[in-house]
């Protein structure tokens, strides 16, 4: 007799959720059409996007890549799409991309800034991913491949390709065996980049580097008995004596004995994104340490240091960058002895560093202020001195808090490098664009250079922003 009770002995497969509760429909309903108002807004936004696209897409569809002048572009567009059609003339980018990237840098020497760029990425790896073998190796391998492709694309002779690749392979070996050692490349990179980009005898870069080595040695020697600050002061004085009075004679002798070097490239020929990167990267990497010192100075109990830091920060945050650039361009020359040849790019870099430091200092001060008082007291209780406490306890936390602010300052700074056009430097946005437009063949161009330059700026700034997000996730040690 069958039991009135029925017991199912196998599980029913789960049914899919109702059509309205899953997939695209659910997402659309929840995110776009959740209420009457939202539905209306969604429809309006769609219309706006369509309306914009109806202008931009046909325009983009009429792109011309092969032409030697704007007139030819217009003829081609008229021939293919009718006389009323308008379209972008990307041919200008195809023919003049090198000027947007390098300015008037001699074509035969393009391998130098390109190699410098690859080395820069490798030297960034220990900063970005300190001690991690995989990312270091990944970056080095990727950069080697990209470098080879770029060098071949630029039509570099084989000798220089082999030389560049040999350097990269050596770095790859270092990255594979001892990724922390790559930090040495980071320290040396400013001098390598300076030598690669400007050229001249190698001894100029070596001599400048020697000044820093002297500084480091003196500092090591003096800081033990006399303290960090006095050590730095003495080191700076000794290094300054080397740079100002000894270096040129020593490097002169060396250059005469061993004339190693690269052809010299004058600053005026450096332009485009090369210039933007030179100014941007130098300012970014120099303004962070200076900013840290200024932020500490501002919180210092010593009245002199405190007021100097406050004055410096408030002054440079209070004036527009353009003012500072004009001052670098004109004012400095009035104060220097006549016939002083003080490179304009160098002057601009110095003022941009000063300007950026003031902003970074305030961002870091925000981080310092956000730390609970207990952290400072704990550091004191452990018996750490001021610099140890800063290095081991305060700064790691303060910097972590300030990452979004620091990166957004850096992004702003990188974009601000286009302002140097106002003092006659060849920035990619205005300087190079103006030169390209002054060519009879391209007179009348408007959007194409802006779109191209804007696109590259977006790529760079967006990568910086993504990296900062990665860093924030990686350093997230709290349990919120």
């Amino acid at each position, binding site marked *: 007799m069958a039991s009135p009770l029925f017991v199912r002995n196998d599980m029913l497969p789960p049914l899919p959720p109702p059509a309205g509760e899953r997939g695209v429909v659910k997402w659309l309903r929840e995110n776009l059409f959740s209420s009457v108002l939202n539905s209306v807004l969604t429809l309006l936004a769609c219309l706006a996007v369509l309306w914009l696209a109806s202008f931009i897409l046909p325009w983009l569809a009429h792109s011309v890549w092969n032409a030697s002048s704007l007139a030819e572009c217009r003829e081609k567009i008229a021939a293919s799409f009718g006389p009323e059609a308008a379209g972008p003339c990307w041919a200008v980018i195809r023919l*003049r991309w090198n000027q947007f990237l390098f300015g008037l840098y001699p074509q035969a020497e393009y391998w130098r800034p390109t190699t410098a760029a690859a080395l820069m990425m490798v030297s960034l790896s220990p900063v970005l991913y300190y001690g991690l073998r995989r990312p270091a190796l990944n970056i080095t391998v990727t950069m080697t491949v990209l470098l080879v492709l770029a060098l071949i694309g630029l039509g570099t002779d084989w000798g220089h390709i082999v030389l560049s690749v040999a350097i990269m392979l050596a770095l790859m070996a270092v990255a594979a065996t001892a990724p922390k050692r790559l930090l040495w490349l980071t320290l040396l990179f400013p001098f390598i980049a300076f030598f690669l980009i400007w050229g001249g005898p190698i001894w100029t870069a070596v001599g400048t580097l020697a000044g820093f080595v002297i500084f480091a040695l003196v500092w090591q020697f003096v800081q033990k008995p006399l303290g960090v600050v006095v050590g730095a002061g003495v080191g700076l004085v000794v290094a300054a004596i080397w740079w100002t009075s000894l270096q040129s004679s020593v490097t002169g002798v060396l250059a005469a004995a061993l004339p190693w070097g690269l052809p010299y490239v004058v600053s005026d020929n450096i332009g485009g994104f090369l210039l933007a990167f030179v100014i941007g990267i130098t300012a970014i990497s120099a303004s962070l340490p200076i900013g840290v010192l200024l932020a500490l100075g501002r919180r210092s109990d010593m009245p002199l240091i405190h007021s100097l830091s406050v004055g410096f920060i408030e002054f440079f945050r209070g004036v527009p960058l353009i003012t500072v650039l004009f001052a670098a361009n004109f004012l400095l020359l009035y104060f220097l002895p*006549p016939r002083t040849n003080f490179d304009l790019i160098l002057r601009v870099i110095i003022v941009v560093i000063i300007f950026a430091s003031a902003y970074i200092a305030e961002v870091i001060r925000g981080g310092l202020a956000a730390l609970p008082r207990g952290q400072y007291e704990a550091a004191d209780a452990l018996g750490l001195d001021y610099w140890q406490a800063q290095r081991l306890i305060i700064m790691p936390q303060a910097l972590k808090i300030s990452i979004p602010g620091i990166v957004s300052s850096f992004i702003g700074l990188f974009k601000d490098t286009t302002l140097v056009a106002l003092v006659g430097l060849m920035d990619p946005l205005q300087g190079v*664009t103006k030169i390209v437009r002054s060519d*009879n063949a391209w*007179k009348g161009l408007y959007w194409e250079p802006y779109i191209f330059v804007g696109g590259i700026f977006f790529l760079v700034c967006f990568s910086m922003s993504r990296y900062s997000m990665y860093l924030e996730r990686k350093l997230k040690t709290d349990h919120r």
Partner: protein
Amino acid sequence: MRKSVFLGTVAAATLFAGLASAGTLDDVKARGQLLCGSNTGLTGFGSPDASGNWTGLDVDVCRAVAAAVFGDSTKVKFVPLTGETRFTALQSGEVDVLVRNSTWTYSRDTDLKLDFVAVNYYDGQGFMVKKDLGVSSAKELDGATVCIQSGTTTELNLADFFKTNKISYTPVNVADDAEALRQFEAGACDAYTTDASGLAASRAGLSSPQDYVILPEIISKEPLGPAVRHGDSAWGDVIRWSYFTMLIAEEKGITKANVDEIVKAATDDTNYDPEVRRLLGVDGDMGKLMGVDAKFAYNIIKQVGNYGESFEANVGTNTPIGLARGLNALWTQGGLQYAPPLR
């Protein structure tokens, strides 16, 4: 006592400053390179091409000076200067000479302490309008919207012109030539005004140049020329006579191509045109008087060419800019380009 020491120091400093800034020619020779303030990029007047070679009417003046001083027209470093930085760069000694389509005006000559040593292009402000506007004279532009680059003398000239003709206009301020063209082509303004030389170049860059006309009125005088700092007349002379050499060469029919023949002819024939003989250094040493080589004029003509050649190559009727000589013809052909006698 203290006061006299102070005054003495000031006097010494002034003297020293005077000494230090005197002798630009010697400075240039010692440096081995002429620093020439030029435009950051102006079609036909001064701009670098795709491979970084500078060309233009203004550039040729710099090259002529280099040819005179060094015998080599390539020994020039072009320093790109913006409208804001140009005069300060000259005053602070960052450049030796400014040849950047700069208008010679009273206040620049006196207040800014510049010396305009010559006029290498006589320009004037003009108007461009759409053909279908049906306007044939600038005086008919009553109530028009006018695109104008802000912060320039053209802005002031425009206001003066409309005021004196008792007609009204609405200015549309734009930052530079490219933007002005964009606005003009899009119909944001009825007329575009700038220097006539710039108008011709701009018209060539429009998508349908035949739909636009340049009105006949020239509403201002814009003599463009090379400028040097006050207080070094000897250096000013070098610039002036380098330029005049190009004019005299055109007047005498000496070109880049035939200068060698003419030197030969003038050397062989003592009855050859005496001014040509003096100019080319065949007879006497004119260069010594201003501290340059006796063959300075030969070098200028051989390496840069005469004024007419430079004009035709950079802005003349065969270039897309297509400027007629007009006021810039030689005085013998009804223009204003006139060089004093070389004797």
